[in-house]
């Protein structure tokens, strides 16, 4: 749908991997300088040896620090839609070539992460990171930073990878007093809706497991015509339309929140429901897909271009 999706899997770019001393690194460099000056002053060769041993170990550790995050690949990303104000949870699948990686920090670039991960070379490592959302729309949490200070804690290597992360954010639901009165839908001028329901006999159909026993055509069964179910046209009778125009309030966001609450309630009650918004109508339906479609319309309402970076 969105054309600028990065192509997964995406690996950390070694050319954009940076390394700098941590604050302990600067402290350690200071210690090394003091050691060096002391050794020069006392012309102490063993002091020189220790100073240069530690410096060399630092330089070697640069390599270890950098290779610890080198080649980390993001294989897939998944995020379930959330309601505004909730945390959007992103689940990354991460693979590493070669050997296991220890003490890896994976976090949103504008956040800090205190929990290091161990990434195993043989497995799909699943990492979950969440970030609080504020508004409805499409939530883009920004780039992901992968960093490590392993093994000495004196150098930090990091690389930022843009996965073009996004997550649908539905409006924050408001559950107002709301019950589905019969005829509620008639008021809104939806001419096709009628309360005819179970009375309208439509015909016979093959029995499907789960059909009500009351609707089995016992007559036909006794006549040896097999198990048939009487079908009634009740699709309109049980369906409702959740309608923007019927809400008394004027504020768009409040309206959307109330609509969101209605959709959730209708979904929970297993009702068939449609949605009517200015310029859009969604025919009644049910199921998770339908729910998502309706809520997505709410989240993008008058807002198609809202691709905001929420913080």
């Amino acid at each position, binding site marked *: 749908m969105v054309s600028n999706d990065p*192509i*997964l*899997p995406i*690996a950390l770019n*070694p*050319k954009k*991997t940076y390394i700098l001393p941590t604050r*302990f690194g600067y*402290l*350690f460099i200071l*210690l090394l300088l003091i*050691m060096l*000056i*002391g050794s*020069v*002053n*006392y*012309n*102490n*060769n*063993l*002091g*020189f*040896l*220790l*100073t*240069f*041993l*530690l*410096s*060399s*170990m630092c*330089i*070697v*550790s*640069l*390599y*270890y620090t*950098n*290779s610890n995050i*080198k*080649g980390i690949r993001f*294989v*897939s990303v998944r995020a379930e839609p959330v309601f505004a104000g909730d945390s959007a949870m992103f689940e990354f*699948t991460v693979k590493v*070539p*070669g050997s296991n990686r*220890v*003490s890896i920090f994976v976090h949103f670039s504008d956040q800090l992460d205190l*929990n*290091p991960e161990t990434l195993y070379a043989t497995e*799909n490592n699943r990492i979950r990171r969440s970030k609080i959302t504020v508004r409805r729309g499409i939530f883009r949490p920004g780039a992901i930073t992968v960093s490590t*200070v*392993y*093994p*000495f*804690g004196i150098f930090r290597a990091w690389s930022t990878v843009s996965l073009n992360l996004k997550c649908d954010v539905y409006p924050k639901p408001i559950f107002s007093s709301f019950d589905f009165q019969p005829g509620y839908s008639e008021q809104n001028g939806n001419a096709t809706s009628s309360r005819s329901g179970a009375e309208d006999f439509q015909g016979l159909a093959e029995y499907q497991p789960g059909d009500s026993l009351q609707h089995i055509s016992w007559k036909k069964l006794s006549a040896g015509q097999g198990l048939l179910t009487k079908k009634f046209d009740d699709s309109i009778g049980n369906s409702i339309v959740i309608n923007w125009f019927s809400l008394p309030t004027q504020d768009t966001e409040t309206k959307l929140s109330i609509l969101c609450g209605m959709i959730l309630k209708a979904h929970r009650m297993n009702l068939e429901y449609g949605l009517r918004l200015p310029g859009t109508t969604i025919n009644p339906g049910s199921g998770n897909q339908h729910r998502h479609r309706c809520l997505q319309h709410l989240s993008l309402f008058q807002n198609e271009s809202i691709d905001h970076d929420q913080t």
Partner: protein
Amino acid sequence: MIKPENENKELGYLVGALIVALVPHIPSLPIWIDIWCFILWGYLFASLWKKWKQPSRWVRISLTCIGIAGVLSSSGQQISSATYQSLLAIMTTLKPMEIRSHRDKMVTIFFAYFIIIASLFQSESLLISLYMFFSVFVTTAVLIQVNHPGNRLQSNLRLSGKILVQAFPLMVILFLLFPRIEGSLWGITPGSSASSGFSDILSPGNVSRLILNNQIAFRVRFSKTIPRPEFLYWRGIVFSEFDGRNWKTGTQPPPLKNPVQGKNAIDYQIRLEPHQNRWLFALDLPVSGQKNEIILADHTLRSWHKIRKTAQYPVTSYLEYNTGQIHPWEKITLALPGTGNPKARELAEKWRSESKNPEEIIRRALDYFSSEPFSYTLKPPLLKQHVMDDFLFQSRRGYCEHYASAFAFLMRAADIPSRVVAGYLGGERNPYGDFMVIRQYHAHAWTEVWLASRGWVRVDPTSLIAPDRIELGPAGGLPVEDLPDNLLERDFSELNSAYNRLYFFWEALNNQWDIWFSGYSYLEQKSFFERLGFNLQSSWKRATALLSLLMLLLTGFFLLLVRKLRKVTTSPDIVQEAYEKFCIKLQRIGISRDPAQGPVDFVKQIRTLKPGIAMQVDEIMKLYIKLRYANETASEIRKQFQDRVRRFDPKSRE
């Protein structure tokens, strides 16, 4: 997320690293600090094990105050390096009690590194050097532990060792290339050990007390063979002034002007342990000195600076020599106090009047020592007012300084210029190398007399009383009941015993280490690069050249490192790589594979979505399945697969 037991384990490791780092300091710490440390470390480990609460802030503060007060009061007025060591030791016991955060842990590790380098300023011996690597190895493993909590210590030790070994070549390069300077940046505070050895006053008991001292005075490496024992007189200090009881060095003589005539030249290198004075030791009679040394008119070698750290210097000596004319300033070598020791003067006067020449007087004096019942002992009786009379006619028991000073007194009384020379006699010959170790207990004093025909001549009256002293070392000639324990233990007559062989082997190793490693300094660096063909005279030019070379090497090293790190990892799994490429190509036309989706499923999906490319996809997939799941290893199949993927272009088929 760090479990408390892990946290406790980590604290235990930190304390362990501190202890390992502190071990070399322990011998030089006061006993009460050792006890303090053992008690508090014991408490720390017990508290970690039993999960006691750490002591409160007030307990910690009062312990710190007690510790610092104790250190200051036990060190007295003087703040020596032992004071700093004691403070470091106290801190190792208190610091672990307040470790809370990651920051505390890191600081503790850095503190451990600091303790390690502090120990290196006490000694540069081979043992300390080896131990340094061990300490760094342990401390670094704990550093890794702190940055990767929950890992097993064993694997951290392995990584620490690995990094240490990998750092080795770079360390050697840095060590050799880092420019050394002459002297020091801002002076050196004296080390902990007060000068052991000689002082500038020689009085009875000064030399004999040194026999209890096992410390190394200096080491010598001869470029050819070691001279015979009777030549091994290590000249250090000349005492020309006599005040009736003590011998003093007096005013410093001028530098030597006329070169000494001599033969039997011998070259050797001396590594002198610090003694906080300026005198240098050399075989009788030194004739060449280095830039930092002068030869004084009394034929002693003198350094410009006090020897505060181990000094290494080459010397050439003549074993046979003639110093020629006496200098006017050497009149002092005839001076005696106006009064005192009348009997000794009388004896000398008698010899003088009865002898034809000074040689005869000397012979008579020596005869006197060998014929009268003189004895060689470490425990002479106390001498009364007229020390010479008392010694020559009453007690007749003494160590070398008694004989040397009595002989010199008699010579002066007989009008022969004479003086007392102090230094060392002999040394431990190491069978594993052409070098000797001279320890404090080799200290000796002898006499020099001036003869018109031969110049200054060495006369050692002690050799008449204890002839074995020269051959057998300080233990030779002393009565057995006099021998101190340290000499009894060092019985090297049996070279075959395993202990002695080990001892000499270790000494030889130490000596090699000292020469090759500890001795590497300004001059050695200079000659090292001269041998390599870089002859830069100005030290500034050399330092700049070395630093630029160092920078160049380091930059090159970094560039290599960066290149290696920047290279995109070529995963060894070629098949997987090609398959991913294939998936990416499909993704571009809108077909994406769920990570969990198998190839067969995927093909089905593609067939329904894009029937136009189904044929091609089918072929590629068949190859992939063959390679991946049927364990096909033939390289042609793999190549074919790669080839197909490369030519696969779903966009053109749309």
